[in-house]
């Protein structure tokens, strides 16, 4: 986290996203925003507030409720000289756009023998515990991660969000950019000066010796909280944030695993056939002979996400559950 040392002010993750968009739109007139209620309303989460005032309705366009349609329009616009940033309000709506993303955006470059490009960013959200029930609480990033031709970015701090979003917008490929709804109000240091963070470089959020907690997006803060709790038990946890699930910085994950010999992967997607399985498999393959125990996964319970608070709270990893699992993995008990 060297970078944040130079930071001079605090922004929320939402503000960092907005600032990244504003700076890129100033830098490059080809960049524009397409989505539902993105203009005057600034999205349902108010993340884009003010952008339409600066850039006008020609560059911040409200669309009908047609996710497949405007994602497809984004693909075509990206192929023909523009740099669309498509806004999909809830990541749960991925099911409506998978053909546009997986069969069109992801494949155009390859199918054309490299002659067409799709420099487009699809911003969307993930995360539960907002009492939004089964169709508005999912973290479906694994679907996109599975498709060659797409890149998938999962920032966990305002600093990363800004730097990674700018890289995503400058990238020549379709990039899916995930924002955790619960993290929009999270504050963190973000320097005034222009900077970008390359896609494909993991970040060690906390250095430790005894156990590695690989965490993505919303789960990074949970992992850091668990690491604090572990301190009191003299367990030193290293928290590694891949930051982008594709491209994936395998080396950093594997090296940390080799160093600590114990690993937990925490991701808010459904556990089964999810992103955590890939991270666990990569680590097992790369650090197999150094591991003291199998890599443990902690993810969303394999159930549709319920509305009722006591039920929903039981479906996601928490500081306590990660802390307890880590302690147990180190052969210790609370």
């Amino acid at each position, binding site marked *: 986290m060297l970078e944040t040392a130079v930071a001079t002010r605090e922004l929320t993750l939402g503000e960092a996203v907005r600032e990244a968009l504003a700076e890129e739109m100033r830098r490059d007139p080809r960049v524009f925003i397409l989505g*539902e209620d993105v*203009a005057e309303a600034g999205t349902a989460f108010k993340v884009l507030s003010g952008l339409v005032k600066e850039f006008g309705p020609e560059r911040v366009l409200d*669309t*009908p*409720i047609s996710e497949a349609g405007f994602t497809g329009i984004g693909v075509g616009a990206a192929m023909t000289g523009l740099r669309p940033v498509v806004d999909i309000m809830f990541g749960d709506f991925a099911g409506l756009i998978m053909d546009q993303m997986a069969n069109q955006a992801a494949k155009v470059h390859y199918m054309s023998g490299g002659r067409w490009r799709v420099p487009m960013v699809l911003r969307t959200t993930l995360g539960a515990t907002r009492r939004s*029930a*089964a169709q508005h609480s999912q973290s479906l990033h694994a679907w996109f991660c599975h498709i060659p031709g797409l890149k998938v970015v999962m920032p966990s701090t305002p600093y990363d969000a800004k730097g990674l979003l700018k890289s995503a917008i400058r990238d020549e490929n379709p990039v899916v950019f995930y924002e955790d709804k619960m993290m929009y109000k999270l504050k963190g240091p973000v320097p005034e000066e222009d900077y970008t963070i390359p896609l494909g470089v993991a970040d060690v959020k906390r250095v430790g010796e005894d156990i590695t907690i690989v965490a993505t997006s919303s789960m990074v803060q949970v992992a850091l909280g668990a690491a604090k709790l572990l301190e009191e038990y003299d367990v030193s946890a290293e928290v590694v944030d891949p930051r982008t699930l594709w491209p994936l910085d395998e080396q950093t994950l594997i090296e940390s695993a080799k160093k600590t010999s114990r690993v937990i992967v925490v991701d808010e997607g459904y556990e089964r056939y999810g992103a955590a399985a890939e991270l666990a498999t990569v680590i097992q393959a790369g650090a197999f002979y150094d591991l003291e125990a199998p890599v443990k996964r902690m993810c969303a319970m394999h159930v549709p996400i319920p509305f*009722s608070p*006591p039920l929903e709270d039981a479906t996601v990893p928490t500081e306590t559950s990660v802390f307890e699992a880590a302690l147990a993995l180190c052969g210790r008990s609370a």
Partner: protein
Amino acid sequence: MSTIEAAVADRCLRMYRTMVTIRLFEERVNDLYTRALMPGLAHLYLGEEAVAVGVCEALRRDDYITSTHRGHGHCLAKGAAPDRMFAELLGKEAGYCKGKGGSMHIADPDTGNLGANAIVGGSAGIATGAAFSAKKLGSGQVAVCFFGEGALGQGVLYEVMNMASIWKLPVIYVCENNMYNEYTHFSETTAGDPLVRAAGFGVAAESVDGQDARAVYSAMAKLVDRARRGDGPAFLWANTYRFAGHHVGDISREYYRAKQEEQHWKAERDPIKVLRDWLTEQDVASAVVLDKMQVEVHEEIERAVQFATSAPYPDASRVTEDVYA
């Protein structure tokens, strides 16, 4: 002494009572939210009561409906009980879905409610499939698909309208045009003419004043009749207005619609006032009788809230139940 036929009078009084029930229910939902007693958000049906009530008055109890994120009114109009509705909104075990669904997913087989849906346009296929079953099984049921005008943006709606038309399915697509897709006026998101769209798919299309429960009922009764006779699907365009915000948290709305617009609709086009005026003018019921009815409904709602607030949450162990049948 009223000149109105008894059956008509009864129907209108029934519709009035249900509209008042929805109105008081929703006002209480908003109250529970503002007092932080309800988890999450809710999309209130205030101002649109005549659509759900007029439509469901034309249905049998075993007819099917699918509802939306703004579904409380549809569920109540189709016969759901306020107490189990509130229990669901509060995430209690006694709720219609054991607390697993919440405000946007109330479902109830006993009243033919296939479920509210939080995906805009998400229930178009389900409603059409229910109509498919009704036809294949010869049950004489019809299916009603409620959705807002924003769902006109979802392609799947046209896919299923086309099939409903080809197969002459007994499904009625009820489009509640409250003029806003969240915070965007529908004129900015809707080209052409929705009625012509429906006609282009061979679906009988009609438009109605969504603030007049009697008009909604008559229009719907005709379309339901057609559908039961086997003459196929229909599209009903009901012009209405939501009195409150897109959801309970949508307080300052000036940036997307004028206060005067809201005031106009509340003052001039309140569906409850419209029906009340007719009932009194036609001597179907006196103000006194209607006020008494309102008091009864109010008490029922209060009892329902009591029931729901004192009802227990499901045990956390229930979380893994009902994933598979």
